[in-house]
């Protein structure tokens, strides 16, 4: 007769919050981590403290993923973004918990999760409409057919805002919906929803490398993104005002397209500006004749 297990409270299994690079969840190559606390200053987790080499690896992964992702049909990208919404909905409780840990009220946390799900749905629908709205057939004065189509600019560096879920989704989704790939520096004080979102992305048929999530110090990581010559664009949404000029100057090194931070109300309907900021317009001419 076996012994009965002792009657004591079960110890929960904690999650190790790691980075999300190239579809995998590595620790920072530096081996560093930093303490994430809740709103009351209590320990919540050790988040990975990414380094410049993690930026390098993430950019490499994003570049490698760019051809495939931008080559998908817009319909397929839309389906995958919708799938992300489905997965996020299913994990709603977990996100709500993390948001409450970050200080939101129960109602506010729940509303933010709902809004984040809805935001993915909104952007999913854009995938196969953007070209019709941002492109054109141009009536040139000659025997030519001339059309302009929007194309993704390439690898986008996103310095995510401190709205840890909705702000994050509202900066990542517009970058990738058109076929860009992204390297995201998560909110520094509240990075955990970003890593949980990465788990959603990893289970949504989003190819590895399309979104790479780094946690750590913005002031350390953002300059490496801004100077990286294989990054095509920057979203500075989460950059404090006094750091913008320096990053913009660094971004000029290869003429990155830069979205400056503004007083974004992440709850409002986003409009198309964040999508078009990361689009190139390609215009093709061809003669018309027999």
């Amino acid at each position, binding site marked *: 007769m076996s012994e009965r297990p002792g009657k004591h409270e079960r110890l929960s299994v904690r999650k190790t919050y790691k980075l999300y690079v190239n579809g995998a969840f590595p620790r920072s190559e530096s081996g560093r981590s930093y303490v994430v606390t809740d709103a009351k200053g209590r320990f919540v987790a050790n988040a990975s403290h990414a380094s410049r080499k993690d930026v390098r690896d993430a950019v490499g992964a994003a570049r490698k993923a760019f051809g495939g992702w931008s080559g998908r049909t817009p319909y397929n990208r839309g389906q995958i973004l919708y799938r992300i919404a489905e997965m996020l909905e299913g994990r709603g409780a977990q996100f709500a918990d993390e948001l409450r840990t970050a200080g939101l009220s129960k109602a506010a946390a729940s509303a933010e999760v709902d809004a984040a799900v809805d935001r993915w749905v909104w952007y999913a629908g854009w995938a196969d409409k953007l070209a019709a709205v941002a492109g054109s057939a*141009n009536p040139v004065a000659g025997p030519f057919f001339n059309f302009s189509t929007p194309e993704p600019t390439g690898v986008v560096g996103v310095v995510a805002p401190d709205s840890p879920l909705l702000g994050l989704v509202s900066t990542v989704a517009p970058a990738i919906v058109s076929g860009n790939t992204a390297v995201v520096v998560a909110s520094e004080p509240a990075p955990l929803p970003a890593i949980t979102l990465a788990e959603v992305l990893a289970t949504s048929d989003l190819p590895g490398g399309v979104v790479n999530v780094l946690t750590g110090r913005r002031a350390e990581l953002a300059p490496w993104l801004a100077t990286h010559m294989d990054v095509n664009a920057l979203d500075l949404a989460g950059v404090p005002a006094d750091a913008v*000029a320096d990053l913009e100057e660094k971004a000029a090194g290869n003429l990155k397209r830069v979205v400056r931070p503004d007083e974004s109300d992440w709850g409002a309907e986003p409009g198309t500006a964040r999508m078009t900021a990361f689009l190139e317009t390609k215009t093709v001419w*061809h*003669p018309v004749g027999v």
Partner: protein
Amino acid sequence: MVFEYAPAPESASVVDIRESYGLFVDGAFTRGGGEPFKTINPADETVLAEVACADEGDVDRAVRAARKAFDKVWGPMPGAERAKYLYRIARIVQERARELAVLESIDNGKPIRESRDVDVPLVAAHFFYYAGWADKLGHAGFGTDPKPLGVAAQVIPWNFPLLMLAWKIAPALACGNTVVLKPAETTPLTALLFADICRQAELPPGVVNIVTGAGGTGRALVAHDGVDKVAFTGSTEVGKEIARTVAGTRKRLTLELGGKAANIVYADAALDQAVEGVVDGIFFNQGHVCCAGSRLLVQESIADELLDRLKARMATLRVGDPLDKNTDVGAVNSAAQLAKIRELSASGEQEGATRWSPPCDLPDRGFWFAPTVFTGVAQSHRIAREEIFGPVLSVLTFRTPDEAVAKANNTPYGLSAGIWTEKGSQILWTAQRLRAGVVWANTFNKFDPASPFGGYKESGFGREGGRHGLEAYLDV
């Protein structure tokens, strides 16, 4: 029988070049605080005129004039009224077309055939096109009532002086902005003639201000606090400097910079038209074209045949007097540019490429460079990577479409590209993969006000032309 064309010079008497020119600020020509400079005819090195140089104080006056005009007159004016001013300008450009063309050729060195048939007609078309947008901005896809940005600082290059002015000023004014424009120091004259056109059109003072000068004037203008928008066309090097200058400010920026376009000729191309396209692609405007097809990528299986045809065609190019109506290739714009072309061409030989030019008598005075083709060029050669901005073509070969695309994209630039093939699916496949803002398929160097133009990567950002061109001048 040798059919020699007798000289057919366009009469320069339609142009009245003054001895000296002032700045155009707040509707009047004024003196400049800087040291005046001379603009010369690059075809014979004669001095054409002395031109005022704007210093910081002059730039400040111009920006203030533009601000006042924006606040008091141009900003509040209904779009339909702005439109009528732009239509007026378009009409006056047409009325004074020959004068503008001749002056452009004299100051720039470009053949009269191009200034007459390409530059000036496109200038008029550009104003006519954007005039029509001025009262329809709510339908352009940037919101129902998009607002102008304010004062636009615009700095333009010397290769298409008046056309670049039109690309800058027409959309800016249509959207309700006022402008301070700095033409290039080697080609200021048509911009100053344009100032006179603004006066004939009775454009309110301060809406268009022209400040002449060199790099210092441009830097002062770009850095001025009163500027809301900076638009620049020119080299990538200066474009980066400008991007650093406006970093951390509220100023919006669009840049149209350099290029090293690949012109891809597949084995099944319509060969005679491809040869024409290659010639137009690199020798149009002496190769002083940011979107010039300066790298010919030819499929190896037809490389010899294509090159034979290309050389035979190059031998028929007529190099010389820009005002001769039969001239195909005119003068290089400046001594400095000529030196740069020579230096890069010398490097091509040093690095092992084979240089060829047709027999070509060049005038003794002025800045001239014979149409030149380099064969046996590798991607690693400087002449395959650096923008020469002259009549120099680098020829590379490829074996497969994948290789063509890979080589075409293997550059920090991304302004334009060409594709020559009779196979429709191959055109679209290639066009999709080229990282370039303008792709000419079975044609090259075509421009139209309705067609967006601008680059990927280090060729800049923002588009000029078409509906897309409005975005640069609206608060969106």
